């Protein structure tokens, strides 16, 4: 490939252009297939953003559905309020600000989780994020303005192919470039060895919190796209199982491998669409997949990088 095509900014522009063109042609598409493709786009955003927290930074979060629900509710409530006050015509132009508002509030939630994470590691953090996701769910269940337990319906259907894949491209670009940057190498350093990283002058806490905030922001964007795609959201839709699905994508793709995670997001979304009629079977399959994968191939199914050989000690 000529070097100019390797410039990530050009790749981003190209990806967004393709998404927009595809979006223009999407009207001719079978609406069922279009919905599935949009589902895939949302799954990619979720998986890539969780990959920044779980994969690159090595902080195991089980609360991604919580961040997603914050974005979904905030943006849906914003567009519903705008629709009431301004009429329907201007709405598509206000969709982006609504999404960003959802993302920012989700990022704030990410900050709230990230701060306790500075004292916790591994399995404790996993439980706290799980608990945090549950708390968010309980709160939305009790807030009347968010529709309470019965959920929020009548959200305008604004998430098209162009929006979804344009934003997915932005997510992949931001996460990919961030991790490759000088600053972003710190995430990987924190993942590899926290003590060593801090003795090299990096501040692990800051990296962890940054990862949570950025990951939560994009999860919020994905949530906004989700609510404007399904047009109906309820607190039950953002439970632990939703978080777990995203975690499975990240593990399957290989933690910290953006390409593998995207493949896993596509494959698993298609798979769950195929297994829609046997939903219970799907979760049994996911669980078995995880157990077997952890025992036999912990580096991920779609990770083809060869394992580094352990260095052999000289005198042994």
């Amino acid at each position: 490939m000529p070097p100019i095509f390797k410039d990530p900014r050009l790749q981003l522009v190209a990806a967004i252009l393709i998404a927009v063109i595809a979006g223009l042609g999407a009207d001719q598409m079978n609406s069922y297939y279009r919905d599935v493709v949009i589902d895939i786009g949302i799954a990619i955003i979720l998986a890539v953003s969780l990959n920044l927290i779980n994969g690159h930074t090595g902080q195991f979060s089980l609360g991604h559905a919580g961040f997603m629900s914050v974005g979904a509710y905030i943006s849906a409530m914003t567009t519903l309020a705008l629709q009431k006050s301004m009429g329907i015509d201007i709405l598509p132009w206000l969709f982006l600000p609504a999404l960003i508002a959802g993302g920012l509030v989700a990022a704030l939630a990410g900050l709230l989780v990230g701060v306790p994470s500075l004292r916790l590691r591994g399995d404790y953090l996993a439980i706290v994020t799980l608990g945090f996701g549950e708390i968010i769910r309980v709160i939305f269940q009790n807030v009347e303005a968010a529709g309470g337990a019965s959920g929020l319906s009548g959200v305008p259907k604004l998430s098209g192919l162009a929006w979804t894949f344009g934003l997915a491209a932005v997510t992949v670009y931001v996460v990919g470039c961030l991790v490759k940057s000088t600053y972003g190498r710190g995430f990987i350093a924190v993942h590899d060895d926290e003590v060593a990283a801090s003795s090299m002058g990096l501040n692990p806490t800051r990296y962890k919190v940054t990862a949570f905030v950025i990951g939560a922001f994009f999860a919020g964007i994905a949530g906004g796209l989700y609510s404007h795609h399904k047009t109906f959201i309820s607190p039950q839709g953002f439970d632990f199982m939703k978080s777990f699905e995203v975690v499975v994508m990240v593990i399957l793709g290989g933690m910290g491998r953006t390409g593998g995670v995207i493949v896993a997001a596509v494959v698993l979304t298609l798979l769950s669409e195929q297994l829609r009629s046997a939903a219970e079977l799907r979760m049994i399959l996911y669980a078995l997949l995880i157990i077997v994968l952890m025992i036999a191939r912990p580096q991920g199914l779609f990770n083809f990088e060869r394992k580094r050989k352990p260095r052999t000690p000289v005198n042994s």
Partner: protein
Amino acid sequence: MNEISQQLVNGLALGAVYALIAIGYTMVYGVLRFINFAHGDVFMLGSFTGYYLAPQIAKWFPIPGWGGWVMVMAATMIVCAIIGIVIELLAYRPLRDRPKLTVLITAIGVSLLIEYTCQHKAFFGASQKAFPQLLPTGNFTIGGLSFNSTQFVVLSVTLVLLVALTFIVKKTRIGMAMRAVSHNSAAASLMGISNSFIISFTFGLGSALAGAGGVLYGMTYTGIDPLMGVNVGLKAFVAAVLGGIGNLPGAALGGLVLGVVETFAGGMSGVSTYRDGIAFAILIIILIFKPTGLLGSKQIEKV
């Protein structure tokens, strides 16, 4: 006043079940240093074991009745101990030397596998089932307080099991070996203790207690379903952290405290709808301000 004491008794009965499960979390954490996510599901399997065994045992021992009840409890505890040992053998043992995160993810996988397999119609089915009555029930009053006899049984059984557990851990050879492995597994194995055996034994002991908790829960709340282990398990874990993870009396204390707090919150208007979030709020607060828990001792991490 009377209502407050009544709620206290209700809370203690709920907390006793939490305590029994929390001990399993704490013991496994002690020897393996990881959270056995599937422990809540062993508790659920305990309830269902009791549910399916009771009609069989009723052929020999009258149920409801004390003899039949003791048999159901004992059989459930044995079955759950075996389940716990098998889970460790199949899922966790192959990962003994892997990073902790790998084991944690596997534990989540095991937990979901149990839940969704049990929900399938070929097994228990997703619907709620009515737990059979194992003991004659009645109400009696002590000093103006009215007790439900089941609550009384739950509290006494928990007390007996806790005393027995303390005896095993503190006074027997195998208990000493458990403490040694928990303290320093490498040194323990140099002293001739088989780590694998002790880990299996710990899983068996913890799972037996969870099974007992499952039967007691079924007797108190009568409705059981394949997902009941999720919430109760998570709350029992919170109880274990609250008391200081790795600390047995702490787990019991944490369970009782959590049960009482939750029951009181459930009775208050305005707070009651947030009841399921309270345990997690407690967890986050305790992890921020006193991560070692109420009774835990501070450990310095060495590099």
